[in-house]
């Protein structure tokens, strides 16, 4: 993504070292970057926003214009319109709904402002200069594969799934990947209760799920932040006949994995530093630079971040890079 | 009227309260100007004046509801000022407001003790309150009003009794009664007077406001007359001041003939309104009668005898159990006010505030409410036509202030009543139902309304009048229906009836 090694780049203020990024780190011409995201109504989104803002502060040549976080596409469109009027040099856009923001992104591109699309994809690739994505389908597959492996051919295993906001395409992609992976080993999801990415909703969804399924073998929880609530519910119900896989890669979950006596056995890394990377890329694009380690003199069109699986074996390696949700 | 004559002499007690140079301004109007007013302990001081003269405003200043712009209030010779009602209450001033000031969703006992609940450490003691409330109500002659009843379920008269009980529930030195008799019948007014006498005998002063001069004669000691916000006469002795002089003081003219002569109904006049076997509520007897063009029919009876309910069933505001109503031979849809209004019927309901007025809207909007389409072209309203119609009614009814763009809320009680009448006058109906049309209306306007009724009847309109003042029913109507306990017990030409006869008929009709 950036020229820095992934681990250090991802931690924002803590470890990021622009100096390591070679010549790209040197201050270039001053650029203004517009930044618009959905409301920080859950921990992951908040972490993502914050990392981006922190990252921007590291670069003296970047001025980041943060628009009010909103889940109203109409408002978000207007924010982008305002940025276009404002003639910013690049826009980092994490759309509430990718398809709905496509047109206005196109408008920005047409106006000569490069748009960096983060996390939730536009409906046409031409509407952004670069797309930085987590691998949502891949995350689902990883979680599914891990569960298949752990259960080791156990038939009729009961699997619970606690997705996040169900109407988001990224949730749908994750579930699809999960289903596909389970299918390969002959399993399927027996109970599925969506939460809303918040601790509170996670606790509520899990409480009900545990009642609906008197016995479970595994749970996949889509989001580590809501996972804190899920764990609280599991403790309250005093259940431990199953194991749980998370997603997101929060420090909390990694510590759970590390402790060894938790139901949490693994989590997939869904990087919260996507937006931060988006900001870095935007800076480079605006300053007309390339990614230092690639021969390509242009920034690539799409960057899909790798979805690693964190387990007790490799948690030491990932913990320092994890975000505090 | 035959209230028991007051034989007490005017008490020469000490001055309890004095108001000096009171001035009260509202946006766009000066309601009180340099008013001086005094009350001595143990007297009944009557406050007279036309609608909008400022009576209610004056007593609200006294009760701490309004703060005067100028002037002083002295209690026992010491200057005081009330910045809120609580302070006035604490100083021993109890008030029965003109517009009933009860919380309809609370029970009788809860209303009586509101603000001074019987409680131990904050926990209310329902039993003690119920006992005390029942005691007060019995003392007022109404043990049938149970303390646990919700006030909203009581009739207006019942609510007035509760209001009275509330004023008595505190230690008071002065009680203000703003038109307490407006919703009461003669029987009940007598009851009220007994209470007033009991109070004055123990040294409590009473400020009494009413538009019925006979009542003043019976209960009052001294009179202060307000006109357009100024006191035109103060401390007149009741015994020395004839009615004619009072009327002159209030209105600036003399009114002699109260009830205009009725034009007899032609023998061949067609029945406009026919009521056939109407059963108003489950268990009631069916009622039938008809009213001819130009006829005024009075419904006489005691409060709560069911007169308003009969009007409601005819008008369609409540759905009758069975039976039918015909207007010009056409059957009306039962339970539909739309059908009644379209056929040419109009109703002035008894509770103007809750049933008739748009308090926050202009007078013009209130006048035209029933005939909105008439003041519009192809669905678009015409301000000019509305203004014209409103001004006509304002002039005709002598409404004050004469400004169609004023909010109805800011008008005095009597003037608000005139708005409702004006609504149907400008609408123009074949049949007009008047439920207590002169409630709270001053002498001058009252005679205007009487004249209006006779004019309307001459123009061929059928009218039904309900009034708790038997004199009014008798004076206005061609024929009288006596109603008792939801039944029509008698029908006769008004000329053959008297107040006594009606009361006798009512008693006979009452199942004991």
């Amino acid at each position, binding site marked *: 993504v950036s020229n820095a090694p992934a681990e250090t780049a991802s931690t924002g203020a803590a470890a990021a070292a622009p100096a390591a990024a070679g010549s790209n780190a040197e201050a270039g011409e001053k650029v203004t970057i517009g930044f618009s995201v959905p409301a920080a109504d859950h921990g992951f989104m908040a972490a993502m926003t914050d990392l981006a803002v922190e990252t921007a502060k590291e670069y003296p040549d970047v001025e980041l214009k943060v628009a009010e976080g909103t889940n109203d596409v*109409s408002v978000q*469109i207007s*924010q982008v319109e*305002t940025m276009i009027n404002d003639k910013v040099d690049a826009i980092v856009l994490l759309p509430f709904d990718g398809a709905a923001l496509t047109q206005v992104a196109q408008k920005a591109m047409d106006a000569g402002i490069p748009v960096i699309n983060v996390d939730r994809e536009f409906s046409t690739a031409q509407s952004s200069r670069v797309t930085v994505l987590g691998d949502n389908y891949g995350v689902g597959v990883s979680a599914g594969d891990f569960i298949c492996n752990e259960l080791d051919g156990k038939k009729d295993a009961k699997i619970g799934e606690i997705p996040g906001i169900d109407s988001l395409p990224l949730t*749908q992609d994750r579930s699809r990947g999960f289903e596909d992976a389970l299918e390969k080993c002959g399993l399927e999801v027996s109970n599925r209760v969506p939460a809303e990415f918040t601790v509170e909703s996670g606790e509520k969804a899990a409480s009900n799920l545990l009642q609906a399924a008197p016995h479970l073998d595994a749970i996949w929880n889509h989001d580590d932040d809501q996972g804190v609530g899920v764990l609280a519910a599991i403790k309250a119900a005093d259940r431990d006949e199953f194991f749980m896989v998370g997603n997101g890669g929060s420090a909390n979950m990694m510590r759970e994995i590390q402790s060894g006596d938790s139901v949490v056995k693994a989590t997939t890394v869904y990087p919260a530093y996507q937006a931060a990377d988006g900001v870095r890329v935007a800076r480079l694009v605006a300053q007309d630079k390339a990614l230092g380690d690639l021969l390509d003199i242009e920034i690539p069109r799409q960057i899909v971040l790798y979805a690693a699986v964190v387990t007790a074996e490799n948690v030491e390696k990932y913990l320092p890079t994890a975000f505090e949700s | 009227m035959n209230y028991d004559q007051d034989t007490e002499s005017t008490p020469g007690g000490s001055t309890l309260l004095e108001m000096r140079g009171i001035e009260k301004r509202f946006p766009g109007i000066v309601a009180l100007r340099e008013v001086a007013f005094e009350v001595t302990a143990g007297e009944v001081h009557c406050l007279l004046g036309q609608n909008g003269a400022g009576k209610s405003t004056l007593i609200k200043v006294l009760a701490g509801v309004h703060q005067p712009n100028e002037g002083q209030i002295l209690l026992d010779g010491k200057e005081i000022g009330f910045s809120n009602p609580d302070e006035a209450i604490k100083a021993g001033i109890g008030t029965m407001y003109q517009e009933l000031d009860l919380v309809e969703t609370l029970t009788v006992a809860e209303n009586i003790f509101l603000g001074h609940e019987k409680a131990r450490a904050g926990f209310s003691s329902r039993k003690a309150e119920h006992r005390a409330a029942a005691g007060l109500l019995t003392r007022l002659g109404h043990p049938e009003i149970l303390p646990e009843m919700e006030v909203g379920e009581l009739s207006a008269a019942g609510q007035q009794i509760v209001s009275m009980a509330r004023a008595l529930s505190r230690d008071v030195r002065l009680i203000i009664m703003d038109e307490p008799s407006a919703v009461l019948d003669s029987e009940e007014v007598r009851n009220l007077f007994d209470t007033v006498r009991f109070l004055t005998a123990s040294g409590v002063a009473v400020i009494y406001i009413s538009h019925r001069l006979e009542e003043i004669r019976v209960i009052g000691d001294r009179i202060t007359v307000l006109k357009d916000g100024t006191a035109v006469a103060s401390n007149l002795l009741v015994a020395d001041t004839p009615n004619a002089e009072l009327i002159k003081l209030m209105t600036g003219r003399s009114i002699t003939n109260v009830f205009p002569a009725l034009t007899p109904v032609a023998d061949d006049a067609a029945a406009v309104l026919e009521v056939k076997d109407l059963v108003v509520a489950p268990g009631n007897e069916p009622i039938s009668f008809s009213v001819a063009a130009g006829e005024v029919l009075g419904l006489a009876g005691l409060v709560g005898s069911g007169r308003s309910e009969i009007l409601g069933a005819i008008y369609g505001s409540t759905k009758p159990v069975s039976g039918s109503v015909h207007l010009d031979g056409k059957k009306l849809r039962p339970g539909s006010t739309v059908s009644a209004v379209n056929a040419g019927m109009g109703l002035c309901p008894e509770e103007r505030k809750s*049933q008739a007025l*748009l308090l926050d*809207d202009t007078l013009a909007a209130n006048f035209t409410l029933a005939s909105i389409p008439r003041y519009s072209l192809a669905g678009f309203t015409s*301000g000019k036509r509305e203004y014209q119609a409103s001004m006509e009614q304002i002039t005709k009814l002598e409404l004050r202030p004469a400004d169609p763009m004023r909010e109805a809320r800011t008008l005095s009680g009597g003037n608000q009543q005139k708005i409702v009448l004006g609504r149907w006058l400008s609408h123009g109906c074949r049949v007009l139902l008047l439920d207590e049309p002169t409630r709270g209306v001053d002498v001058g306007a009252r005679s205007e309304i009487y004249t209006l009724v006779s*004019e309307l009847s001459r123009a061929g309109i059928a009218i039904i009048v309900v009034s708790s003042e038997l004199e009014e029913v008798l004076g206005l109507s061609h024929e009288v229906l006596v109603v008792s306990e939801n039944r029509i017990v008698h029908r006769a030409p008004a000329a053959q009836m008297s107040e006594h006869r009606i009361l006798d008929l009512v008693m006979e009709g009452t199942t004991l």
Partner: protein
Amino acid sequence: MSTTTETQPSRTVYTRPRRSAMKWLLDAGLRRNMGLIFALLLLCALGAFTAGDRFADSNNMMTIVRLAAVTGVVSIGATFVITIAGIDLSVGAILALSAVWATTVSGQAFAESSSWIFMALTAMAVGAAAGLINGILIAYGKVVSFITTLAMMAAARGLAEIISDKKTQIITVEPFLKAVGGDVFGVPVIVLIFILVAIGGWVLLNRTTFGRRTFAIGGNPEAARLAGIKVERHTMAIYALAGLCAGIGALMLMARTTTGSATHGTGLELDVIAAVVIGGTLLTGGRGSIFGTVLGVLIFSTLTNLFTLNNLSLSVQLVAKGAIIVSAVLIQRQLARRAQRT
């Protein structure tokens, strides 16, 4: 025929004291909304001060109005509902349902083969129909509006999700996007729609018998009933109108986003009620101001714009928003009181 004419042959003609057009304008709109106008101007001054030309730029102004347009149109409908002391929590969900219904595959195919107008009509019809259901339940079923529209909010949103299978429907009918998403003489069509709906709403509320009855029902439903007004039918019509406005809002949002989605209009109900209430329409009914509503919507969208132009942290923006809302209302009250005194 008024009896007055019959009994009084000579009829005096009363002429309304002449008010100059200027004074009338002051009275009708400006005076009462002085505080709001003041608050809006203050925000603009703040914008000009903090963001200079970038704020005062005509493009930026158009952006503000464009943002206000969707909420604005829906708020006009809600003004009627709140004027009769009702509340409509379902407008956001109805908007989503209308948008999704109009953009389903079969619908779009039909629109493509015939005319884009059908897509627009579908959205409006669906909105009006959902509003009508609200209206029937409230007026004839006597279920309180809060509960009815809360239920509709859940049901319409759920139905929208089912219809769209939770997928964002991309609009492929180009003529629709051109027509509703385009410009006329440099003014975006959705802004024109907003202006038209606002003017239409103002006339309907203040200059027609329909509006007169609306105020009457809001002020005193019992009095309205006794005066022969069809309170139930009128109430039903008003909720249908609010639904229709949500449908119009749907097609505007469709053009703006080039999509139909079950997530459209999430949280819109609160924005709408806030705009209407800030605009001076009383939740207790009987008073309503379309002009005030438009100002309310503009205030909120200017606020968003201001925040976007300046570089406040998201959390600080929220705190500031709260403080600004309360101050705006306090200023409004202060000015209104002073106006009354003079």
